[in-house]
């Protein structure tokens, strides 16, 4: 089966743009149609994907800007297949959300969401370094306007803070990306190219690699956000409109994690080994910090934000264990976290609606009395977040810790505490929202409606299905991680190289 990735990438934008020409509510429906087309294509791709094939599938490779050697090059393999599925699912849910609960100026909102989906899908499928950077930066634009146009009362400063934070990283990454292409071209005496497959064959000098890797890592860590560079996150999470925030939290941070796997590790393997310890320590600190903050925060959005920080730190830990298991676990966990966090933000909305807009756990409570169905569905989400055995998150975290265990024993032991802390903060948030006494702000005690179920139930079903059968994603990812074009072989080789040199020196 041939699936044109260009159609997948541009369908959301095209439909949403057409929607801006239509009046009012219709625009939202057209945006939904676009995201459903993308969802359909990605499901078809999931079913059609050849698990045993090497390398990229559904490749699109055309000339785009020959002056800069940038190619319109898209492809799918085990690394991004499931993340694409996640993206289309989450954006379809968000689009449905804005259809069911109309926002002000729905046409523009739907257009921006379509642009965001296109940018994210472009970043996930891009196989050209500059194309990746372009889409990575483009992802920010729709959220800039979404926050300015529909955000909370302090959106101005929150937005500017978020944009400056992330663009400092992104722009440095842009310079590093151009430098990577230029230096590689100078080394091989070939023409300027940014194709990832060509660039990964060139090995740059160790010092250069370290500088370039640092620029990329900074961009990805800010985007996640990781500990130390998360300063923009609390404000942005508080001010962003919820349908956008669900997609933002579920998907955009994954692009950063994916960037490590697609770009930073294959292109700068030596530097990845050099930075391994630092990044693993950063991840472990991030796990503990995120969990502690999620435990003390009272705003539901912030609890989810800090829990995301902790989860993303888990993913980074898995990636920088530089082991097959760690990377596989990171991939699964990236999908898991996205699947869980998007519906949780919808629950935040539903809870706030029952409490006059309050999103603070101190003002909430007792929602389960009137809303048993909502409470049960949320419980599934909460249990999945805290990685209860049997959930897909358990599998993901298990793999990550297994990988980390092989790489750095001590760090992995500390990281284990994060698993326990996750249950503390998730259950606290759940109990204080749904159980306990009826909170002071809770006014309308009622269960969720059928329309709300349209959004929440399918997502919960997917989570449960994924929990029952995580092998689907594991197998698809296997080839990319372990197959004949192994991501880590090159890193293993470089890690082995100094040892080999040392041994030959010692021999005589």
């Amino acid at each position: 089966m041939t699936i044109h990735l260009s159609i997948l990438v541009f369908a959301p934008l095209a439909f949403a743009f057409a929607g801006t020409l239509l009046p009012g509510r219709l625009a939202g429906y057209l945006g939904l149609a676009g995201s459903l087309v993308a969802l359909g294509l990605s499901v078809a791709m999931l079913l059609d994907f050849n698990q045993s094939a090497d390398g990229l599938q559904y490749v699109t490779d055309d000339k785009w800007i020959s002056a800069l050697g940038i190619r319109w090059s898209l492809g799918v393999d085990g690394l991004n297949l499931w993340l694409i599925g996640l993206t289309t699912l989450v954006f379809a849910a968000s689009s449905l959300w804005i259809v069911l609960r109309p926002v002000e100026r729905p046409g523009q909102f739907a257009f921006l969401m379509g642009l965001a989906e296109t940018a994210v899908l472009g970043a996930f499928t891009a196989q050209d370094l500059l194309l990746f950077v372009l889409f990575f930066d483009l992802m920010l634009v729709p959220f800039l306007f979404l926050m300015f146009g529909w955000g909370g009362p302090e959106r101005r400063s929150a937005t500017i803070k978020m944009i400056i934070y992330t663009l400092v990283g992104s722009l440095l990454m842009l310079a590093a990306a151009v430098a990577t292409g230029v230096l590689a071209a100078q080394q091989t005496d070939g023409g300027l190219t940014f194709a990832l497959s060509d660039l990964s064959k060139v090995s740059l000098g160790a010092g250069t690699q370290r500088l370039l890797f640092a620029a990329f890592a900074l961009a990805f860590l800010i985007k996640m956000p990781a500990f130390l560079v998360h300063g923009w996150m609390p404000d942005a999470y508080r001010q962003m409109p919820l349908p956008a925030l669900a997609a933002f939290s579920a998907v955009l941070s994954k692009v950063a994690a994916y960037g490590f796997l697609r770009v930073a590790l294959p292109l700068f393997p030596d530097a990845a080994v050099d930075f391994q310890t630092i990044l693993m320590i950063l991840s472990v600190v991030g796990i503990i910090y995120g969990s502690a903050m999620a435990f003390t925060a009272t705003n539901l959005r912030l609890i989810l934000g800090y829990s995301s920080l902790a989860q993303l730190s888990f993913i980074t830990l898995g990636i920088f264990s530089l082991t097959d298991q760690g990377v596989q676990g990171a991939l699964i966990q990236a999908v898991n976290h996205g699947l869980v966090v998007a519906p949780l933000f919808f629950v935040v909305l539903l809870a706030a609606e029952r409490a006059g807009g309050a999103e603070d756990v101190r003002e909430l409570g007792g929602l389960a009395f009137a809303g048993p169905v909502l409470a049960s569905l949320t419980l599934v989400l909460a249990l999945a977040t805290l990685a209860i055995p049997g959930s897909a998150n358990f599998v993901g975290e298990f793999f990550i810790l297994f990988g980390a265990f092989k790489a750095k024993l001590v760090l992995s032991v500390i990281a284990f505490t994060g698993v326990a802390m996750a249950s503390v903060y998730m259950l606290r948030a759940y109990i204080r929202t749904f159980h306990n006494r009826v909170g002071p702000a809770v006014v309308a005690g009622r269960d969720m409606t059928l329309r709300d179920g349209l959004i929440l139930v399918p997502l919960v079903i997917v989570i449960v299905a994924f929990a029952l059968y995580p092998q689907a994603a594991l197998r698809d990812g296997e080839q990319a991680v372990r197959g004949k074009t192994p991501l880590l072989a090159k890193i293993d080789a470089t890690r082995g190289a100094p040892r080999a040199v040392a041994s030959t020196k010692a021999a005589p």
Partner: protein
Amino acid sequence: MTPKAPYIDWAALSPFVALAAGAIVTLMVGLFRSRVVRTWVVPGLTVVSFGAAIGLSVWQWGTDTAVVSGALAIDDLSLGLTILFCAGGIVATLLALGSAATEDAGHGEFHSLLLSSVMGMVVLAGAQDLISLFLGFELLSIPLYVLCASELRRATSLESGLKYLIVGSVGSATLVYGLAFIYGATGTTSFGAIARSLDATGTSSDVLLLTGVALTLTGLAFKASVAPFHQWTPDVYEGAPTAVTGFMAVATKAAAFGVILRLFDVALLPAAATWAPIMSVLAVITIIVGNVGALGQSSLKRMLAYSSVAQAGYMLAGVVVTTSLGVAATAFYLAVYLLMNLAAFSVIAARERETGLGDDLSSLNGLGASRPALAWTMSIAMLALAGFPATAGFFGKVYLIDAAVNNGYGWLSVAIVLGSAMSLAYYLRVVAAVWVRDEPRPAALTPGGQPVMAGASADGPPVARASHPFAVFTGVLCAAATIFFGIFPQPLFDVAQDAGRALASLL
């Protein structure tokens, strides 16, 4: 035997001739008493002669010749820049339609001066001789001094013109002094001969020459508003009529960079080792000064003035690298810069008339709700200036970074991106003013974006009275082109590469 008349390559000179003819004709037609003729025919003729110059430049594309006994190069670089100047001139004419500036200064005079200034720019961009360089420089500047002061009834406009006159004269004096030193050191005024003389005698460490280079660089830095010679820029930009400011921001900048490219990357190329370090330091200083200066500005024109200083810093990087890639990158950036800036100035011009708030940032408040076309135009212009992807500004930055890294100036590319990051702080303030309608309204925060009452923006700006269709039109057009070249930049890259190849002395 009759004496043979000198051969004149009229075809190569044709863009210049079109402008000169336009300058004379508009001045004459402006004397008619009929109001319709003065307010509509004169601008129409101006646009026609700019258009003719553009058409003739396109027709001449690919020629590589020197006219006027080698004093003026007609090649893809000068032709490309001519197109930019004329495009800037057309937009300025459209923005000035019905403005106080044309009314006060007289329609014929205003447009004739505009055309003369572009003539000077054409000479400057093609100058291959110290004499023609200075001629072009003065022909460009003197009409601009008058144009800045053309809103006779507004004190700030007069102040702007006077300031520009004084500072510009200092710049000109410095420049001509420097040119004299270069002539003294090399014994010739032709760029090619200067380069050969420097190559042959190795006078690149000659004190006479170094003084000349330093003074020349200073003089040109005044015109290109390179820090620390930029101080006039915000004052002049703020005071001048918006149409003139927009024109100065794009066309003068392009002309100054055209001559900097040709003088430094052709005539003084053998001495690159002496001036490249100075210029790269100047580039970094300019980036910092421009971006820091723009941070606290509430006047949009002042903000854009500082932003133009910063952009000059980015473009200097393309000069410093002394490769044809650098020239192409600078030319590309100049074209992109023209689109982005004119889009912004069109919105400012439109809002000035509609709100009566002048060019203050608050004149943009609530634009997103009341005037979506202007709002998107302004947002696109700001994001493009900041270098966001899917706008042409992104590729402009990528191309400059590419050129810088390619010749070992990686640190300069870091300065460019850090400068861009800093610039976000003030560009985003503008975008925020456009879209964040008013100060915090608690009602706006209904969870999940529940519908907020539509009529709540009562304290927004008054409804547009005297709308300015041409400003809106040019703004939308420039913004659309910015997006178009952000997605399909290849045609622009082709033109820039042709221009880059024009300077044969470079790799």
